[in-house]
Structure formats: structure tokens, C-alpha cells
């Protein structure tokens, strides 16, 4: 068992089954094109795809390139395409895929570094572009100043969107992202809404200006795939439509 499922000893049980894990291998610096390598993997009902990949890395092929860290779906490292859909490898159990073959590929719409690891610079840049911080004059605290008051209901208005772990799955699923390299994307748009909806924030107008661009919010067509693949229940599609409500004058 991979180092992640680190139960002290006594691990393999008679309940373990096996599947074939197909890993997409591609190093753009050296390879002409990508290919798959297959590995037999035995798994328990709780074994995650990430554990399976790390098992391969540990025992079959040390060179598999994959990004991972928290193994508990909070750091956003391990997004990849698993059996055709963008998912977190550490948050997908082999047993729930109901398939004898598990295929893992790098996320779409992100440049490949190597194998399963992709570049995130673009996502980080667009995230920064939408000013993801409270905008007001008194964000720097003076001594003895109190907190800004905020009711639980006001927190409820944005907390959902604050759950984003920047895994990029939404950007990988979005049909506009598939062809539009300048599109801000659901991740950043949802974060724009997160701050606009925060009762402490006063930066709505400047943020709306940024996303009201020819590759801004209007390039979302409410396809909803972003929300379907989001592992944290962020629902970017909702945030984007609510945000657009402001621009269309439905909300203020």
C-alpha cells in the first residue's frame, strides 16, 4: 500500500480487489506525443486513485510525475482527468468508479509539465487579476480596533464561494476554457463573486469593471460543467450568474 494510507501494519485483507491503472505519460521536453502505461493495482474499498498512483511511483516506476500534498481534498494539488472527467485523485475512490480500468490523464486546458502535473500560472494570474481581497480604506488594523461586525446570515452569502481550493477542475471542464485562452474562467469569476458578496467589501465596482471584458464574464454561457465537477461544492456557475446580475442591472 502506498505511503499515504499509512495504517500501522496488518494492511492487506482478503477483501482487496484489483484493477488496471492506465497513466498518461508525456514529457513535452523529450517526447513527441503522449502514451499510456498500464499497471495492475490491488485496492481496498477506501483506496483512492492518488494512493494507487503513488503505489505505482513507489513500486513500479519512480518517474511518474504527479502533484500531491494534503491527501484530504483541501490543498487542490491533485486535479486530473480520471476516467474522462476532471476530479481530485485524492478524493476519488477506486471503488466508486465501478470500472476495471482506471485511466488518469493530466487536466485539460492547462499546459502539461510532465505526465499528470500541469502548469497553474495562468490560474494564479487570473485569480490575482480579479482583486481577491477586501477593498476598503481601513483593512490595516489600528490598535484596539474591533472586528467588522458580520451576522451569520451575511457570512452565508459568500462562504460557499470561499471554499474554493484552486484545484482548477472547473477550468478544466468549462467549454469556453477549452478554446478561449484569454477567458478569466469559472475559478476566478467565482472568487470575484466571493468578495463582491462579502458584506465587508466595498470593491464591487472596480471588480465588475475588470470582468466586464471581451474575455470576461460574458464568455460564460451557463454550461454548468464547472459546478458539476467542483469537489468543494463551490458552484461557480451560480456565483457567475449572480455576478452577471449586477452587470445587467438585475441586482445592485
Amino acid at each position, binding site marked *: 500500500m502506498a505511503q499515504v494510507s499509512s495504517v500501522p501494519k496488518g494492511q492487506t485483507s482478503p477483501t482487496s480487489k484489483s484493477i488496471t491503472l492506465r497513466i498518461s505519460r508525456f514529457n513535452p521536453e523529450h517526447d513527441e506525443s503522449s502514451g499510456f502505461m498500464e499497471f495492475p493495482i490491488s485496492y481496498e474499498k477506501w483506496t483512492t486513485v492518488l494512493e494507487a498512483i503513488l503505489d505505482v511511483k513507489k513500486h513500479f516506476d519512480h*518517474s511518474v510525475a504527479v502533484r500531491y500534498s494534503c491527501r*484530504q481534498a483541501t*490543498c487542490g494539488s491533485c486535479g486530473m482527468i480520471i476516467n474522462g472527467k476532471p476530479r481530485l485523485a485524492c478524493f476519488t475512490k477506486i471503488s466508486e468508479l465501478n470500472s476495471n480500468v482506471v485511466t488518469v490523464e493530466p487536466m485539460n486546458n492547462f499546459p502539461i509539465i510532465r*505526465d499528470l502535473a500541469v502548469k497553474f500560472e495562468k490560474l*494564479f494570474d487570473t485569480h490575482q487579476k480579479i482583486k*481577491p481581497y477586501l477593498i476598503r480604506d481601513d483593512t*490595516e488594523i489600528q490598535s484596539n480596533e474591533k472586528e467588522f461586525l458580520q451576522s451569520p446570515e451575511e457570512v452565508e452569502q459568500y462562504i460557499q464561494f470561499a471554499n474554493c481550493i484552486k484545484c482548477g477542475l472547473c477550468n478544466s471542464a468549462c467549454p469556453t476554457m477549452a478554446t478561449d485562452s484569454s477567458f478569466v474562467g469559472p475559478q476566478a469569476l467565482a472568487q470575484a463573486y466571493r468578495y463582491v458578496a462579502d458584506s465587508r467589501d466595498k470593491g464591487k465596482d472596480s471588480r465588475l469593471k475588470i470582468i466586464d471584458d471581451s474575455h470576461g464574464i460574458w464568455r460564460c454561457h451557463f454550461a454548468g460543467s464547472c459546478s458539476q465537477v467542483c469537489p468543494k461544492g463551490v458552484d461557480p456557475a451560480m456565483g457567475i450568474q449572480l455576478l452577471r446580475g449586477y452587470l445587467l442591472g438585475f441586482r445592485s
Partner: protein
Amino acid sequence: MVDSLEFDLIICGSGLAGLRAAIAAAKKGPNLKIGIVSKVQVMRSHSVSAEGGTAAVLFEDEGDTIESHVYDTVKGSDFLADQDVAERLCVEMPQEIRQLDHWGMPWSRRDDGRIDQRNFGGYSFPRATYASDKVGFFEMQTLYDTCQKFENIEYLNEWFVTSIIHDGKRFMGVTAIELGSGTFYTIKGKALIIATGGAGRLYSFSTYALSSTPDGLDMGLRAGMALKDMEFVQFHPTGILPSGILITEGARGEGGYLLNNKGERFMKTYAAGKMELAPRDIVSRSIMTEIQEGRGFKHETGVDCMKLDLRHLGDEKIKEKLGGIREISIKFSGQDPAKDLLDIRPVCHYMMGGLHTDIDGATEIQGVWAAGEAACNSVHGSNRLGANSTSECIVWGKITGELAIDYIQKNDSTNPWPHHLVAAEEKRIYDGIFRGNGDVNPYEIRQQLTDTMNEKAYVYKNETNLVEGLKKIRELKQQTWKHVDDKAKEYNTNFANVMELDSMFRVAEIVLLGAINRKESRGAHARTDYPKRDDANFLHHTLAYYDPNGPIMKTHPVTITKYQPVERKY
């Protein structure tokens, strides 16, 4: 020629401590260039996993006092904390909570709109400030997002720092590998803040992110700094099976019970006053005692465990306050806390020890500070209270960030760049590791090492086990695991993993040696062969310095200001 970059301030590590330092520094030195160098992408740092709370005194108007926070911390530490340091933590913290609020932190709120707090182990007032049960995550997000405001912060994502370069006295730079391209760099700088976090992956059953390995500690060690108090490893009572992912102490703070196989809340035997909310060292020992006396359960993997009962909290409260662990237990263990008892077991969770610093976070090398879990300013002594660690990261992040800027503005180094040190480092990692030979699988060695730590230096320790553990680890070290089979340059995590393993050996040895030397039981360090605390002989910190022939162990006095050690009872 080696590729080279230059910053004024280098921050190694992008967890809570690193990011808080970056903001403090960027604000104080708007014209200085700050580089955050991290082996993971900024937001992937281990800190995002922190769940339960951040300790601070917010409601003095409702009866809480700073003094009480200080005393709880000192008592929790089993009187090994430096008391001036603990006081600094408690005094600085309230402001920091409000600062985070001003930056956008989604703290959970009370109905009157003020920031809410919950109960946590070892405190005499509910003072764990929380945001559902994803405190670390939201704090990281708030700090990361706030960093985006500053144009003088640069992010070197996925750069593995391998060594610290100094001229014997003063800091000069670091060497690092950009993982994406595989290029070896020197990064010159005037000051460095080490914020590389804990090293809990020394144990195989651990709540830590897989990236929490001791390479940061080892880097400091090799540069001549001391590691302090490394024998104090905290085992959190409730790691869920089979993954070892943390079930936050907040679960007990909200009212959860620990049950043995007789269905009793067994904590009444061990800490009747605080029950499940006794400090972690006590709860973990209680669980292990129950298990050893036959009142435990067997998990289907064959591991002994205990049960955590949250059912009486009700589905709604669990969803509202413990959404994260609800997700974790349903997904990873198939247990819904509203309906099922959770299988839990003490799990490696925190390292009280770290790079030896003073109260300001300054290390023994000029221009180098350490903050967060990587540092040991002795605020936690021999046992950290829950929620005090994120606090520590934030407070000393800020302090070191500002001090480093002061230092940079005052000092101008003109010493010649020590090329030979860079060359030596390049030789160490490329000739020694990357082009190394051998047929032993380093991943299996790593597994054996971490299993050994788990077996020999777990909640209860004794001489025989510790000595055997040390022997085993030295034996493993001799095997031919130092080679990297992946020959590609780009994103070579195999290389990084072997470098991590290399550092694990040195630090594991210090943990075990420290534990062998400390012939007493104090806080998280529980020796069955020396079950009592021994203030006469061991009321001191342990220091370990690097030497090629094995660590040199020393001691260091504890600062006691107001509170004389007394017996610790809850």
C-alpha cells in the same frame, strides 16, 4: 555558472507563517523585493489542513483574560515553555484575529455579529477562534489573497530549497532546484525566514500533508543551527482510520465523546475535570492505556482503535460546525458522524521542536529567522495546546517579517559570494544523490523508517524501544537507497523524494536521541520506564547540532517568569 536570482528577503515556505511574514515584510519594506520560495505551490502548503481553531483572547468583556491564556499555555506545556514567549503569543494574538477579519477571513460569527469562539482542549475559556472546521484553509486563503495586493512579493512555486549559504556568521543566500525545469539555482538574499513547517511525515501514521518532511529543519541543521526539543512529538487523539486524516479537536470542543468498548466515556478516569477536553498528550495516553488494558476496538484493518461519538450533536450542528470532518469521515471512512461512531486512534500531529530561536524568532545565524512550526521558540514547551499553533505561525510570521526588513535596511553586506559552498552543495545533491548508485528502493526504506518511528517512538516510549529504533534507523541509513532512477530533469519528484528521505534520517536520529536522553515523562514525552516528571534533572530544553559523525546534544535553560512548575492536573 550556476543560474542565479536575487531578492532582498527570502521566505522559505508558504504556509501560514511564511505568508504572514511576507505580508508584514511587504508592508514594512515596500521597496524591497520579497521572494516566497516553496517546494509546493503557495496554496498547497500543509497549513490548509488545519481544522479546529486559532487561540486568542477576544472576549475580555465576557471574562476571558490574557493571563489565563498564558497560564493555560504554560501548564499545557508541562512547564517547559519559555514563559516570556508564551506571554508574547497571547498578547499579540487578539489583534491578529481582528486583522485577519479586516483582510476578509470568514470567521464563524455569533448572532450579534462578533467573531465566535469554541472550546478546545486544555483551555479554561472557549478561545479557539474558528471558521467552521477549516480554519487553516480559510486563514491560508485570506493571507494568500492579501498577498496578491503587494507587488513586491514574488512567488517561486515548486522550488525545492536544498541549503542555506552563509559566510560563517551572516546569511547570504540559498540554493534551490526549480522542480518544473529541474534547474539548479542560487538565490541570493540579505535575509531569510525559514517557515518550512513541521516534519510529521517522519511517522507513517500521520495527519500531515505528504509534503511535511524535515528538509527545512535539516537545511538549518546542516547550516550549523541547533534543533531544539525534537523529542517532543505530539500525538493527536483522533486520527481517523484507515487514512490517519485528522478529526479536529473541535469535534470534542463541540461536545463529542470518546467511548471505549464498554460504552463508557473513559476520560472520567484520567481527567475528570476536563473529560475529553484535557490536553492532547493526556487524552492520547488515556486512549492507549484503554487499548492496552483491553477496552479498545479492532478496526477492520486489524489496528486497535477507539470510538468518537458525535451523534448526539445532531446532523445540523455537525453540518454547520464540523462540515469538513463530516466530508472526510463519510468519504474516506464511510462513516457519517451523525449516525456512526468514528474509528479513531492517536496519530502523529505536531512537532513541538524545531530550529532553535530566541523570542524574536532569530536563529543563531545573523539574518536568518525561523517562524511557524519549523521554529522552536519554546512557546509550546513539551506539549502544545490545540489552536496555539496557527496562532504561533501568525504572530511570529509577523514579528520575523518585520524584523527581517529592519535588518535589511540597516545592514549592507559586501562579503564575497562563497562559490565554493555552492559548488559543494551541488556536488552533495547531484553527485551524492541524483547520480548515486544502489539497488535498494528508497520508497521502501522511507516506509520502513516511518514505520519504525511509529512503532518505537509512539505515544508511550521506553529505553528498549527507543534504542532499537535508533539502531534500526542507523541500519537503514547504511543501505544503498541514495539513487534517483528518474533521470529526467523536468518535475522530478523522485529526486525530491530521495532528498527528503536523506533529511529524514538526520532528523529522526535526533528525535530518538533526544527521547533516549530525556529520562523522565513530560508533556508529550511519556516514558513508561520513567513515568514521573523530573524537574531537578530535566527542566531544560534539548539542543542538537550537526556533526558528520552524529548529532552533538546539548541543553538550554527554560525561561520561567511568573509560574513555578507545579504538578499538572486537569
